[in-house]
């Protein structure tokens, strides 16, 4: 039977043999020795030296150390614990913990001295707002949680930590307000995360696709959250936020179609301005989807729907274009998508050059060369601009794909195909749900109160939460009872 010493040596050697770039520091003590195992790149070595190694070395050599004794008497680390399961030693080291093994004790210590290089809190890049906090999430999960915690000081704020990815062991935090969020959504989300069986999850987008109930679905079913203030607003409204270690974007669930048109500004600005901007966004989304197709339908099929003088002007403009309208529209939309994609992929200082080339090539040269009609160019540009108006770009992405499909169908069947395809999109939308919440709520199923609160009014001012979210606590602010003696203080 192996002695404790032999077992200790075997264990340390077996860990080091794994070639995981683990550093070992051995310290002798009375009747044995201890091994401090850590990964240099993930550990704050200064703290390790000062708060762990120094007190252990300076301890009386006559003391026979155990894990419990070391933790209670010598270590100055704030976050440390005693563990016995040796199978998890490697995992602990890989997650950035420092592990201390004792030759005279079967238990071992894990000390959290993680030091991960991180960015400072950046300003938002995809969820820009004029009148909102500037702090947004970064790739560090703890920092992101702290950003939420410092805004919501409620004892009912729950943070459930889960893990996904066999190799990455990515930490995932499910954050919600216990007395507000719908339990079904929380448990469903938890269940789906636990069900994930992949080698790794490195970004929230990856998690999002793994959480979808139908992977062939084109429309996003979880909202993206970059701003911590927006995350808090969503939590207060009864939604569940999912943060992924290593991702600067959180996910919110459930997400209805209408919510993709909300911006932080809507909540912080005047209610009428918020409504005005939402209407602009809806019109823009519809324009993104339909502008080119309407142009094709009007110029190729239903020309009599145009005013006569404009029909002549359009015929003049198109007289030099060699393609039918549908081909011209398709080519131009394709070209614009190419420019958009190239601008995203190249360094910024080259991007502006590509933008200029794109503008000149498409804007001027293509028209002079008679490749496209000027009106088509205007329509495609408007379609591009309107695609940027949606508060959540993931929805705009769906519309970009649908735009091409709609264009092709309209090119074949005119307004008949156009209408039919829009009906198909609508029927697809109404048949969707996001974690049990109808995707088109409050339009379908129609709920007047939610419609007024969610579409017309400012949700920040509403005393009630959205009904379709089926929150535990529907009321945001207490009902104000009118005192019989209201104003009596003035009379007294």
């Amino acid at each position, binding site marked *: 039977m192996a002695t404790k010493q032999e077992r200790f040596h075997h264990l340390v050697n077996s860990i080091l043999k794994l070639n995981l770039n683990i550093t070992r520091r051995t310290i002798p003590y009375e009747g044995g020795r201890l091994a401090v195992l850590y990964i240099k790149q993930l550990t704050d070595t200064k703290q390790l030296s000062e708060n762990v190694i120094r007190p252990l070395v300076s301890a009386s050599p006559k003391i026979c150390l155990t894990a419990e004794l070391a933790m209670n008497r010598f270590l100055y680390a704030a976050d440390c614990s005693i563990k016995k399961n040796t199978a998890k030693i490697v995992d602990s080291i890989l997650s950035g913990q420092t592990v201390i093994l004792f030759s005279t004790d079967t238990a071992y210590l894990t000390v959290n001295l993680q030091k991960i290089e991180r960015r400072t809190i950046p300003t938002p890049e995809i969820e820009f707002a004029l009148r909102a906090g500037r702090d947004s999430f970064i790739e560090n999960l703890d920092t992101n949680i702290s950003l939420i915690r410092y805004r919501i000081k409620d004892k009912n704020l729950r943070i459930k930590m889960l893990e996904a990815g066999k190799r990455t062991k990515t930490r995932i935090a499910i954050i919600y307000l216990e007395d507000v969020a719908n339990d079904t959504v929380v448990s469903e989300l938890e269940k789906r995360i636990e069900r994930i069986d992949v080698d790794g999850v490195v970004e929230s987008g990856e998690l999002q696709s793994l959480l979808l109930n139908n992977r062939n679905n084109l429309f996003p079913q979880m909202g993206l959250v970059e701003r911590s203030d927006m995350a808090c607003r969503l939590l207060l409204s009864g939604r569940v936020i999912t943060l992924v270690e290593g991702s600067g974007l959180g996910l919110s669930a459930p997400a209805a179609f209408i919510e993709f048109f909300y911006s932080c500004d809507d909540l912080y600005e005047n209610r009428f301005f918020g409504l005005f901007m939402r209407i602009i966004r809806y019109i823009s989304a519809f324009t993104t989807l339909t502008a080119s197709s309407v142009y094709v339908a009007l110029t190729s*099929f239903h020309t009599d729907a145009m005013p006569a003088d404009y*029909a002549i002007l*359009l*015929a*003049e403009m198109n007289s030099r*274009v060699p393609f039918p309208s549908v081909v011209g529209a398709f080519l131009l939309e394709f070209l614009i998508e190419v420019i958009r994609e190239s601008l995203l992929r190249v360094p910024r200082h080259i991007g502006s050059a590509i933008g200029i080339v794109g503008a000149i090539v498409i804007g001027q040269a293509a028209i002079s060369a008679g490749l496209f009609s000027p009106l088509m160019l205007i329509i495609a540009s408007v379609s591009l601009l309107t695609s940027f108006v949606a508060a959540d770009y993931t929805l705009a992405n769906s519309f970009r794909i649908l735009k091409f499909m709609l264009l092709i169908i309209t090119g*074949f*069947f005119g307004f*008949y195909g156009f209408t039919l395809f829009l009906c198909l999109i609508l029927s697809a939308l109404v048949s969707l749900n996001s974690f049990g919440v109808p995707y088109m709520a409050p339009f379908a199923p129609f709920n007047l109160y939610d419609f007024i609160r969610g579409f017309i009014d400012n949700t920040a001012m509403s005393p009630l939460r959205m009904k379709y979210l089926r929150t535990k606590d529907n009321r945001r602010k207490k009902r104000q009872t009118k005192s019989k003696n209201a104003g009596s203080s003035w009379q007294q």
Partner: protein
Amino acid sequence: MIMVKKAIYMVGIFALMLSVSGCWDANDINEASILTTVLLDKQDGEYVFYVEVANTEASGGTEGQSTQAEKFVIVKASGKTLAEAREGLNRQMRYPIYLSAVRALVLTRNVVKEDITTYLNRLRSNNDYRKKVILVTTNEKPEELFEVFKKRESVGFYIEQILEQLVAANQLTRRTTGRYIEIMTSSYSSFIIPNIRINGEAFEIDGFSVVLRNKLVGFVPNAEWNGIIFLNAKRPEINYVIPSDEVEYTILVTLKKRKVEPYYKNGQVSIKIRFVFDAEIEYSNGNDSGRLAEKDKKPVAEKLKKALERDIKSALETSQKEMKSDYFDFNNAFYMKYPRQYRELSWYEAYPKAKLEVETKIRIDELEIFDYGTHEIE
């Protein structure tokens, strides 16, 4: 099973799309012969179509459009029948004919003199035309008519704009081709069509062609314009200049109310037309411009009333005695009140014999109301 059902539905929908006729008729607007004016004439017993076609390719596309370039081309085609003439047009066109941009249909008096039923029926059956397209007549030579703007501007657009601005100014009743077709198909068919003539380098309406039983029966000159529009426009506004002693008052007269009351007694049709006018002193050549002197109030009102009645009666007399044609649609009012009697009698015969009475009320500046009772036309 659900997926199979879905697939069947999808295939069904697409099959339906493919099978629905008219879905494959894509034709770009630049590959169409866009007609803006259609003129129909009759020469030597043959129908002749003159069409003004937008010359979209000669305008240079997007750049370098010259203001001197001919923007329209006139194409002429003739045939013994309308269909034959139209075939002649088709044979000359580079692209399929596009009729939705036609702004004006011009019929020469030669055509209207005969029978326009065939042509109106043709328009009725042709869905390519907008039924809102306007219809005018002319006595001008077609070639000269299309040369007024040297083919740089559309004749059809110009005519339409003249009529539109007159309608907007309450100087004319809007009558589209669709309305003419409606009247033509009703039991009593009579209407007036604005007649245009060349005036220098422009066009003007010089009167109305009167159509009865779908044939031209006469021409009403501009002199009767006031009476005509008081009888059939919605809210006409006309300026009258009324002299009183040494002062001439320019008065804007607005029709506030017109009520047509038909009566039928002992086989005699009589129609009482009540008018209420608002009159507003616009200005005068007197020192106190815009104000009606106390002493002038009664004489001015009397003279204005006489002028109005003269115009209305003149229009009625022309309609009833000269043209024997009820183009003021009194028949509708009679039919509404006496449907059975209307079916029994012939309005073509009854109208010329009908008693027409005119009653007018004028309110000047809303200060006083003058009522001069009922007057009967001899």
